């Protein structure tokens, strides 16, 4: 039975339920959020329908600019760290036996699925004074006494790299599996060391994949909303944290919605860049 265009109205029937669900529970809420971002906030956590740009005007403050700048910088740093760590890892993983691959993939998926609450809790334990990593260093004689490593920027960064690393590997995995193994073989036959073959053949061949992965991990890291709260100080809060904070604790839904709309625009712009990077990759 070949694919064919729908003949009768009845042929559309299977589409009805998914289309309705996605429209009612995704498109409509999305629209609601956009609408609320233009609403007027009332004292006491309520808001009334209006069409004002007040919520967007608040973006022009130095505080907001600082948070936005920090969020973007943090996400870029996480993306670079993850890709630098994950690229050689994934490359070597794809060249291993199937069984080893499956074990690593199961482990990576398990960590990827972990709640941010749990990752935050685990790292705050590891960075704590009483149960943390500094105790090991003290035992080894490297440090004189145990101390807490959190809250700090380093802790936020480590936690977010931990969260995004499995994601990075899984994004890189399909592209690296499909990479023609004869490329490196040729380089090796011509006398390149494995390291040189990796940097002069594999990395350039994957330039577009790397760009696309950087952007995807960047978006992923932008979404982190609990780790900056659990492992950092208030100055390490990101846009995602601020949105949650405004929506839940400050009860300022219109402002939270405006920030969310802004975050969507940033994300969509980046997705568009990924698609363009991907197109170029196919053409090359």
């Amino acid at each position, binding site marked *: 039975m070949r694919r064919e265009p*729908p003949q009768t109205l009845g042929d559309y029937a299977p589409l009805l339920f998914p289309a309705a669900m996605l429209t009612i529970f995704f498109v409509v809420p999305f629209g609601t959020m956009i609408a609320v971002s233009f609403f007027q906030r009332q004292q006491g956590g309520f808001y009334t329908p209006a069409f004002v740009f007040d919520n967007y005007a608040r973006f022009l403050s130095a505080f907001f600019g600082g948070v936005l700048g920090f969020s973007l910088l943090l996400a870029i740093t996480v993306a670079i760290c993850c890709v630098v760590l994950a690229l050689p890892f994934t490359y070597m993983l794809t060249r291993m036996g199937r069984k080893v691959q*499956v074990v690593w993939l*199961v482990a990576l*998926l398990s960590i990827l699925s972990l*709640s941010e609450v*749990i990752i935050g809790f685990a790292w705050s334990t590891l960075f704590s004074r009483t149960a943390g990593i500094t105790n090991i260093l003290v035992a080894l004689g490297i440090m004189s006494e145990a101390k807490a490593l959190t809250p700090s920027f380093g802790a936020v960064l480590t936690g977010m790299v931990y969260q995004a690393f499995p994601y990075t590997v*899984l994004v890189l995995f399909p592209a690296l599996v499909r990479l023609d193994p004869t490329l490196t073989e040729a380089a090796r036959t011509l006398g390149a060391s494995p390291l040189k073959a990796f940097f002069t053949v594999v990395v350039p061949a994957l330039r577009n994949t790397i760009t696309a992965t950087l952007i995807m991990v960047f978006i992923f890291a932008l979404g982190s909303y609990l780790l900056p709260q659990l492992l950092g100080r208030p100055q390490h809060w990101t846009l*995602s944290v601020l949105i949650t904070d405004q929506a*839940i604790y400050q009860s300022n839904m219109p402002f939270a919605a405006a920030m969310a709309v802004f975050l969507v625009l940033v994300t969509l712009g980046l997705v568009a860049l990924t698609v363009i990077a991907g197109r170029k990759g196919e053409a090359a």
Partner: protein
Amino acid sequence: MTTIFRKAYFFLIGLFLALPLIVVAGVSVNAKQTLAFPPQGFSLSWYGEIFLNPEWRSALFASVTLALLSAAFAVAIALPLAWFLWRRIAPWANIFQLLGVAPFTLPPVITALGLLTFWATVGFYGQPWTAVVSHAIFFVTLPLVTLSLGFTSIDRSLVEAAATMGADERTIFRTIVLPLILPYIVSGYAFAFVLSLNEYIVAYMTVGFTMETLPIKIFNALRYGYTPTMASVTILFVTTAAVIFGLVARFGDLPKLLGAMSSDGK
């Protein structure tokens, strides 16, 4: 030389990934309510606490119920959509594919806030069932992606043969398509289930004030200090995820599911 480098690199990455979990596992067996590593004494009572303490037990029950129902709902949305896109040529219907993938691609706080404003506007804010619907929409991407992959792997000549022999659409679906697609339904369900179990922000923004799921419970408990039950719940969750993904890998083709097409190569 290269093998040593590779082994060292994999060891370090493995250590980085495992270290927090090792410490949490150690902390979870402390005899007393202290945050200490290496553990002082040994006790499994904090694992018992998850099931015996009424607050943790009800959070566990809420999380499991939510995950079971929302994963089923997500599959119910994804299956007809993926089937339609495979069976029919209707380019404009791809928009729904895009809508299905969008909630997962965007930062989660956006989907969460959208659903919060929506439920508040329609007046169902805080009802437990809204969390089920919200999670189903948030995670519909997972069964949608696995099912789309599953449908592309079906040999169309099988379906054609059945049609030539006089089977109607319904019979074909029941006797050919469904058995072939079943592993993908199961893995899509498994992915959605595990992620729903761990999800915090969407659950928090939709039902956070009326119901406590386990991640919400851990977060709330964290704000008031430390209890070793958090550590035992963490280990329980990691183990659950590893077992479920291990089963998916055992009965399915995990490298292929994750996008590696040349799965028969090795």
